[in-house]
């Protein structure tokens, strides 16, 4: 649905996006993750046709964004970062305007406005001037505008910034629901948001893609080690000592009454750990494998990038 090939964008002499390529398949919800100024917004602006690339090609819904811009734009719902809206219009007249620019006919506009107002819970505010709405409600109007023409591809640039936690949860729920039938590219720098809403993640830093995979695979592509957390009733030093002797275990640390055992990626020593503890006459209270959190991956990837330069 979205295909980006060797995309490069310079602002004057400043390189914002450096030769990136990626694909988003139909129906996927993909997180576009990166720190501020990583090139997320620039990439999204190019995808939506607001900016032209310096080099490279971009296709959305099968249309080249440069040569068939209007057709591509027809299939995109775009939620820009700052939620720009006309403050001198009412919610209704604004939605009417956006819908008519996207080629909906009069009757369709009427029913669609009712539908999106219902989806975004804007019923009470439909005849209020947008300038008088709070940030949270403006954000909802922004979402309503994004989906009014039922686009196949949604490009959402940090849709949960600056709104209260209840609305954040609501927006994420909405994104999940929309993602069932539509293709979504969601940019954010909030990590839990990605693991909550997305199936796949593309991590970008300083204009380059540093990682790209399904969320559950990301920790394994890190190559590093696997970690297991244990809670054991017994003398801590002795337990740690015995754990270290198990084959494949590199390190054992003890903190907050939990042991963290690090071992090579390919091995699963849980059976042996169990045996060891039983042999020692201690009691195993809990044992779980720790997935590397997105935060860990993200920090590792982006700091590696920095030290690499």
């Amino acid at each position, binding site marked *: 649905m979205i295909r980006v090939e060797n995309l490069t964008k310079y602002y004057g002499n400043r390189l914002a996006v450096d030769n990136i390529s990626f694909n988003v398949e139909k129906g996927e919800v993909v997180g576009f993750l990166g720190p501020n100024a990583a090139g997320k917004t620039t990439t999204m602006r190019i995808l939506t046709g607001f900016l032209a690339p310096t080099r490279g090609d971009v296709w959305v819904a099968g249309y080249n964004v440069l040569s068939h811009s209007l057709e591509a734009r027809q299939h995109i719902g775009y939620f820009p970062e700052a939620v720009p809206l*006309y403050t001198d219009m009412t919610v209704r007249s604004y939605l009417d305007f956006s819908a008519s620019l996207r080629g909906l006919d009069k009757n369709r506009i009427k029913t669609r406005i009712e539908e999106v107002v219902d989806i975004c819970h804007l019923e009470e505010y439909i005849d209020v001037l947008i300038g008088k709405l709070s940030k949270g409600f403006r954000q909802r109007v922004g979402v309503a505008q994004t989906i009014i023409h039922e686009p196949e591809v949604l490009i959402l640039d940090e849709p949960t910034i600056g709104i209260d936690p209840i609305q954040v949860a609501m927006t994420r729920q909405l994104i999940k629901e929309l993602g069932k039938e539509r293709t979504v590219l969601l940019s954010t720098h909030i990590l839990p948001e990605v693991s909550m809403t997305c199936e796949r993640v593309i991590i970008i830093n300083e204009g380059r893609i540093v990682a790209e995979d399904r969320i559950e695979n990301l920790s394994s592509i890190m190559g590093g080690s696997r970690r297991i957390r244990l809670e054991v009733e017994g003398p801590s030093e002795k337990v740690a000592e015995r754990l270290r002797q198990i084959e494949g275990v590199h390190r054992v640390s003890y903190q907050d009454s939990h042991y963290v055992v690090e071992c090579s990626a390919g091995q699963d020593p849980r059976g042996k750990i169990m045996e060891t503890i039983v042999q020692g006459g201690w009691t195993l209270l809990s044992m779980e494998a720790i997935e590397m959190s997105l935060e860990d991956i993200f920090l590792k990837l982006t700091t590696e990038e920095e030290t690499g330069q």
Partner: protein
Amino acid sequence: MRNTTSIALKEFKSYLASPMAYVVICIFLVLTGVFFSISPSTYLETSIRGLWGFWGVLFLLLLAAVLTMRLLAEERKMGTLELLLTAPVRDSEVIMGKFLGSLSILTVMLVLTLYYPLLLWLFGDPDMGPIATGYLGLFLLGCASLAVGLFASSLTSNQVVAAVVAGGILFALWFTGMVANLLPEAIGEAIGYFSLAYYFPDFMRGVIDTRGIIYYLSITVLFLFLAIRSLENSRWS
């Protein structure tokens, strides 16, 4: 075409929703009223040449600069340009819509001044021909000035800068005629052709000069074209 109409309609409504349009219309009517009532030609010739004399027309140029300054500069500043330019709408439709929106407000203002010829008609016996051609001239001059203003607005995100640039271009085009008088005859005349002021008196006298019509339409088309290019250019920044 539909997109153009939607944008034009939206612009027209937002003029009416802001106090700005009413303030401008009000000042416009008061000042034109003053020009009309103090001009001797109103009484001696029962014509509108006093109303649309030097100051009246200069005021119309200023007005065009003020009316158009927000059209694109505000969108750029508020970021709404991002949504407008990512909607499936051609850049030319955006510019045409904005232009027609501002033209409709200007037309409303010109229609409101028809009150002065009406007074002349009620209390005297004016020659309606020059009044009609005069208004045709005003309309064409208005189109050209709005196009210049829209172009200026496409260059910046600051409305004041847009108004000053528009005013600068319009005054320069208007006063070219005066500078032309200082130059040797042939050159002066050639330069004079490029002046916004050159053809206007003919319209006021009741003469429809095709060169005048073509001139004003060319200026309009030229600056609308430049505005479209300037909008396209912002994608490549």
